[in-house]
């Protein structure tokens, strides 16, 4: 059945775009409150050290400095800052302020003062006597026998977690292979570089309720962790996400909100903390640097028999997301592999903390695997494109190392589209061959990677509420955090579509933990799917309730009232009502009722792929050449 949509599938400008081009969109650092003061964090200059003594007396004397927190002034219960639902993999090893810093940028002390510049000056006046310790900076050193153990409270070695996945018997697979290749690849840690740095304003001034404005991808997870740390029920901790200048995974965790909350409680004023770019680079998170030992076995016909990966991850000083990143990494092999074995190791070092970042473990192993796959194709004198086409995973297959069955995959269409571009460019260049310079070396290459829209461990959950106003316009309440990807507009489109009203009739309030319903978080390119389903179901609930209310209003059975082509129709008679007409009928009068839709959605699967012949603006899976050397 072909569905025709009125609002979904059309390229509307996102609803906040005009505010953004006017410079009127409000990001966290743009907010100012009466009597607001500023906080700043003293960060360790050493990758590993012991704090012997801190003397903050000079800083306290500085006029305008209102308070200072040292490690002894804050709870020392370890926690995990990552924005994941509760999990034994979220190892609790981090402290709010520490006297044993484990990376450059680790939080040692905090100040609150009447201006950012005074904060800076106060930080420089805090005298810390450090005993520098030999830092453990790379995987080799951290896993060596004489390495210091960075978290003895977690385990006896720096390898603090191991994730395994397998199917078949890789040894058997390698024996049955005609070609076996093996190599080791290292990837480096890279940084998200959101244009907006981490920022928060914490208002704990009454001591009973904590309100936080912060750039958060996972406000509900952050609320849960924060509420435990400050000892409040979740109803008394409110996280509001203002406009957000990018996330890319780095905002999938708590950053300075805990320190901000404690500073605010200390001075009974709202406290703003904004990272400098330097702090952002040392004190937030990076993508895991990794060492991937990969081995592939292939038959002479070019079929992959076995694939083995042993990946060590440089997790930096704290666990945060790491074991969950590895679990995700283990199940992203885009090939049919009868025998597969994955071993992922989390390793503590004194490197910057590794957290969530685009791809969540996928890029590292994909890089290593694809180089090896390319070599295998070349050894067999096969075209690397054809080799991948031959081995690619197909709908109905089980994703290697997981119980998940792949339900859709348009990689064939994607590769064919890429090939068409390559052929076109090659053809054109042949025509212009005479103009080509000899010193230009040109190569085509390809790599294949598979990612899911939605977490591959089914953690995606969202809910929505839709308040219907007496004129039939709607306010959508969603916990989904828009970090710049446009989810608020997409979700509003879904609501407008189902209700049969125009997009401009829908306003959205999103990601405010007091006023919007729960949602796991914005990550894994999943909002249109996970939150979208919740919004769709909440809008259907609105329609059902309206049918019921119409039945009462007109004294008929609800069953035969249908909502088709954006109109309610009754069993008999000519009457048909638009959504807005229906709402104004049922809202007022003796049988008056308020329509409020709600729904919860738990993702059992990741989103299906976009149709290859989808609308032009749908860019996912549509290769294009943006720039190439000529």
């Amino acid at each position: 059945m072909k569905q025709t949509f009125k609002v979904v599938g059309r390229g509307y400008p996102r609803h906040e775009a005009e505010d953004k081009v006017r410079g009127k969109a409000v990001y966290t650092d743009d907010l100012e409150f009466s009597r607001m003061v500023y906080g700043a964090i003293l960060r360790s200059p050493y990758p590993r050290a012991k704090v012997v003594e801190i003397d903050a007396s000079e800083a306290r004397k500085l006029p305008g400095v209102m308070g200072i927190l040292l490690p002894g002034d804050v709870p020392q219960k370890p926690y995990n800052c990552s924005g994941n639902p509760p999990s034994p993999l979220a190892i609790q090893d981090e402290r709010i302020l520490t006297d044993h810093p484990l990376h450059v940028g680790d939080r040692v002390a905090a100040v609150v003062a009447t201006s950012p510049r005074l904060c800076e000056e106060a930080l420089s006046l805090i005298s810390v006597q450090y005993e520098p310790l030999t830092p453990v900076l790379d995987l080799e050193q951290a896993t060596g026998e004489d390495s210091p153990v960075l978290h003895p409270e977690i385990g006896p070695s720096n390898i603090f977690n191991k994730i395994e996945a397998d199917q078949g018997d890789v040894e058997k697979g390698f024996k049955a292979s005609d070609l076996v290749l093996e190599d080791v690849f290292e990837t480096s840690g890279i940084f998200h570089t959101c244009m907006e740095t981490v920022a928060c304003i914490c208002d704990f001034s009454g001591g009973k309720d904590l309100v936080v404005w912060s750039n958060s991808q996972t406000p509900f997870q952050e609320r849960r962790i924060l509420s435990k740390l400050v000892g409040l029920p979740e109803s008394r901790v409110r996280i509001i996400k203002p406009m957000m200048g990018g996330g890319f995974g780095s905002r999938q965790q708590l950053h300075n909100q805990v320190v901000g909350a404690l500073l605010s409680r200390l001075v009974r004023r709202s406290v703003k903390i904004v990272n400098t770019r330097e702090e952002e680079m040392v004190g937030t998170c990076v993508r895991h640097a990794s060492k991937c030992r990969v081995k592939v076995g292939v038959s002479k016909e070019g079929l992959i028999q076995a694939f083995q990966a042993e990946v060590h991850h440089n997790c930096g000083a704290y666990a945060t997301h790491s074991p969950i990143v590895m679990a995700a990494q283990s199940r992203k092999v885009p090939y049919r592999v009868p025998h597969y074995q994955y071993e992922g190791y989390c390793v503590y070092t004194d490197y910057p903390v590794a957290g969530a970042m685009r791809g969540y473990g996928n890029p590292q192993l994909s890089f290593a695997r694809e180089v090896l796959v390319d070599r295998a194709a070349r050894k067999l004198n096969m075209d690397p494109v054809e080799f991948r086409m031959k081995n690619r995973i197909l709908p109905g297959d089980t994703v290697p190392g997981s119980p998940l069955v792949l339900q859709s995959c348009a990689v064939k269409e994607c590769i064919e589209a890429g090939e068409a571009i390559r052929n076109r460019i090659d053809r054109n260049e042949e025509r212009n061959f005479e103009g080509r310079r000899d010193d230009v070396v040109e190569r085509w290459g390809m790599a294949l990677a598979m990612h899911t829209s939605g977490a591959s461990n089914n953690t995606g959950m969202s809910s929505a509420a839709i308040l219907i106003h007496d004129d039939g316009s709607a306010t959508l309440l969603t916990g989904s955090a828009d970090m710049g990807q446009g989810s608020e507009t997409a979700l509003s489109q879904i609501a407008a579509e189902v209700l049969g009203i125009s997009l401009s009739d829908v306003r959205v309030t999103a990601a405010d933990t007091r006023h919007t319903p729960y949602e796991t978080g914005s990550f894994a390119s999943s909002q249109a799917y996970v939150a979208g389903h919740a919004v769709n179901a909440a809008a259907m609930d609105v329609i059902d309730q309206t049918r019921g209310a119409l039945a009462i209003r007109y004294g008929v059975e609800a069953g035969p009232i249908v909502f088709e082509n954006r109109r309610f129709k009754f069993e008999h008679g000519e009457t048909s009502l638009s959504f807005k007409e229906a709402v104004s009928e049922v809202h007022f009068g003796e049988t008056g009722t308020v329509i409020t839709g709600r729904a919860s959605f738990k993702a059992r699967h990741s989103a299906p792929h976009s149709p290859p012949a989808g609308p032009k603006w749908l860019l996912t899976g549509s290769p294009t050449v943006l720039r190439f050397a000529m």
Partner: protein
Amino acid sequence: MSENAMVIRMEVNGVEHRLHVSTGDTLLDLLRDKLDLKGVKRGCSAGQCGSCTVIMNGKAVNACLVPAVRANGKRIATVEGLEGQNGLHPLQKAFVANGAVQCGFCTSGMLMSAKALLDADSNPDRKKITESLSGNLCRCSGYKKIIDAVEGASKNDMTPVQSMTSDQ
């Protein structure tokens, strides 16, 4: 803390201001903190990202690198002054229409670099547009649409580029 306050005069978006500035204040501090022009974004404070780009006497500059005292006697235009009495500036319209706005944090700076370019050259080619925006980073990596938007705006009736009117 050394105050060394002095008074400067500058015109911002068509309005003349007299401001007390301290040593160490940058133009960015003045615009954001004293004039409440929060559309000017603070991304790196080191002239690397272009988020704080404003136009000073016709040239696009990183406000974070301009000492406040150097703004004395200058004419400054920020994103807040881009909108004219007839609504959005063609560049603003083109950014919205082309989907050139994602997280939006680079948008103000992009717009001001683009405006400085179009004021100097009303019909730049894509190469020139790309070069002119090379100091403005977009981490959402929406460069293609941004360049499309600037090119689109330049093809509209862009002459004269609207004079700055006050929003104060």
